[in-house]
């Protein structure tokens, strides 16, 4: 069971003009591995996740090109009905906002039951048992009572656990987690991350983990993709990325986060991500880059291979 993206382009229609939100996104995720995607907001990481699940509703999707191969089947070729069979059963997703991602007028137990009923229906009693088991598994105390609660009666952390339980209900092979801990308190955040890691190990489930926080991604992921303005700028194993970050953007990201025994000042990255409808002709990071050269303004850098586990989209690595 593996996921391969090949040259995925995504266009959305915003106003009158089409906007290219993703540009030639390619990566692969083998069974049981954890891949992290990191980048500032608006860089296309969530869009990548939604594109895999084909859940883009607004702004309206204009077109998708390239391939999203799941076990060598291109998900973009599937009919709606076939795609529904993939969702939750093979690939499940959890979202950033546990406050709004659950239906406020449905008991949480019933929201989990819905997934079971869709993909492997049983009788009510066996479903109930399954729901309680799931809630127990994701660390919810007194699951029998909690299943009867409405979302507004639960805390943010609890709700995110419910989301996880719902995602796990049909034993998916891949879990996509889009900033699952960002909206939570720091202590709850750590608990949720730990829980996710354990569950993935236990179910031998692949994890595509998306966050703007390099540390959080580094904690979970085997390998990391760094995205900037709709494209992948660096791809490396976690170890390698932390030890020798290549792309100036990745370096800047590293410098902008607080470290233990911080002595020198934090260096924020100057400037902003260019809007997707006003991308420069050359390198998209050109405006904010400290190491820019003349050719960067003119020409878009291709991907260079540093080694087997490390690729980067920057002219600095052209010689190697």
């Amino acid at each position: 069971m593996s996921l391969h993206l090949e040259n995925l382009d995504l266009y959305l229609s915003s106003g009158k003009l089409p906007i290219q939100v993703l540009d030639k996104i390619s990566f692969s995720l083998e069974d049981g591995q954890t891949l992290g995607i990191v980048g500032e907001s608006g860089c296309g990481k969530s869009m990548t996740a939604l594109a895999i699940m084909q859940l883009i509703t607004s702004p309206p999707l204009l077109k998708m090109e390239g391939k999203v191969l799941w076990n060598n089947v291109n998900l973009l070729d599937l009919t709606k009905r076939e795609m529904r069979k993939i969702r939750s059963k093979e690939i499940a997703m959890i979202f950033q906002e546990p406050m709004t991602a659950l239906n406020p007028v449905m008991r949480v137990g019933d929201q989990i039951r819905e997934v079971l009923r869709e993909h492997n229906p049983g009788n009510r009693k066996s479903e109930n048992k399954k729901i309680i088991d799931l809630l127990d598994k994701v660390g919810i105390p007194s699951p029998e009572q909690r299943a009867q609660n409405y979302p507004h009666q639960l805390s943010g952390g609890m709700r995110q656990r419910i989301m996880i339980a719902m995602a796990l209900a049909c034993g998916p092979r891949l879990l996509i987690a889009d900033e699952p801990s960002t909206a939570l308190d720091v202590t709850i955040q750590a608990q949720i991350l730990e829980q996710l890691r354990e569950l993935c190990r236990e179910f031998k489930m692949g994890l595509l983990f998306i966050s703007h926080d390099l540390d959080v991604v580094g904690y979970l992921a085997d390998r990391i993709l760094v995205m900037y303005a709709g494209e992948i700028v660096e791809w490396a194993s976690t170890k390698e990325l932390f030890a020798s970050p290549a792309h100036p953007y990745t370096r800047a990201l590293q410098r902008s986060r607080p470290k233990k025994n911080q002595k020198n000042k934090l260096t924020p990255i100057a400037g902003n991500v260019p809007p997707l409808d006003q991308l420069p002709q050359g390198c998209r990071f050109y405006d904010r880059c400290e190491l820019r050269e003349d050719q960067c303004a003119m020409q878009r850098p291709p991907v260079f291979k540093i080694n087997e586990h490390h690729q980067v989209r920057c002219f600095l690595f052209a010689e190697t």
Partner: protein
Amino acid sequence: MIGFILRRLLLLCPVLLGVITLVFFLIHLIPGDPVELMLGDSAFSADKDELREQLGLNKPVYEQYGRYLTGLFKGDLGISIHSREPVLENIVERLPATLELMAGAMFVAIGLAIPLGLISAVKRGSWIDQLAMFFSLLGVSIPNFWLGPMLILLFAIQLDWLPVNERGSFLHLILPAITLGTALASILSRITRSSVIETLGTDYIRTALSKGISEFQIVTRHAFRNALIPVVTVIGLQVGVLLSGAIITEYIFDWPGLGLLLIEGIQTRDYPLVQGCVIFIATSYVFVNLLTDLSYALVDPRVRLQ
């Protein structure tokens, strides 16, 4: 929940007192002598005095007001000048007709608006949507006192399909119910549409999609109930418009309800009757509003905590 109801009931008291006071003094501003109206000019002055005594009209206004208030508590709305019967009896006699009419109108409105709004929202931008929204704009703009005669003209006079005038079989109800329900149907379908559209854009609908359940189930099970919350609010708010529209509709169709009773009262200058009708209708409306508030709790579990 019970505490909530009690608190709301308590808040109603000053409003109701205000309504009664306002109507009482308004009616008593009217020049003219009700006793002369009842007995005619030629009656003996002794008879007039006796009736005045009976009705308490020889007392000062504030004392009459006090008597009226205490009477209200016992369900006594005074005596109708015209029928010489207790006003409350007249009202109770006419009430079923009005309720029947309003229920019919509500049925027409909800039955049309919710499916229409739902389809419009799901097929947003399609020709069905545009057609439905055009009709809803037309529907709010048609005055019911014109729609009614036009319906009579078409279905009763030209086509001769349906009976009109007065209450009777189920068939008699159809035209008045459509007349009264059309405006509400238009308002509700617009609200339903925008509410469903808003709901379909929420995060939990995306979650539901990510579970792999069908669009039909998403609309019926997830979007619909959430989208219904503002619709219920509007239904509650519009009961007042329905009540007021019922007066006109009853007048058009000679429908023997409360509204017609009120108009008859005004035409015969039967002021105790007018006063009783107005107070009764306003009071019912206030209680309907309370019921609307309570009905949120049925649709939206978040309300139950408060």
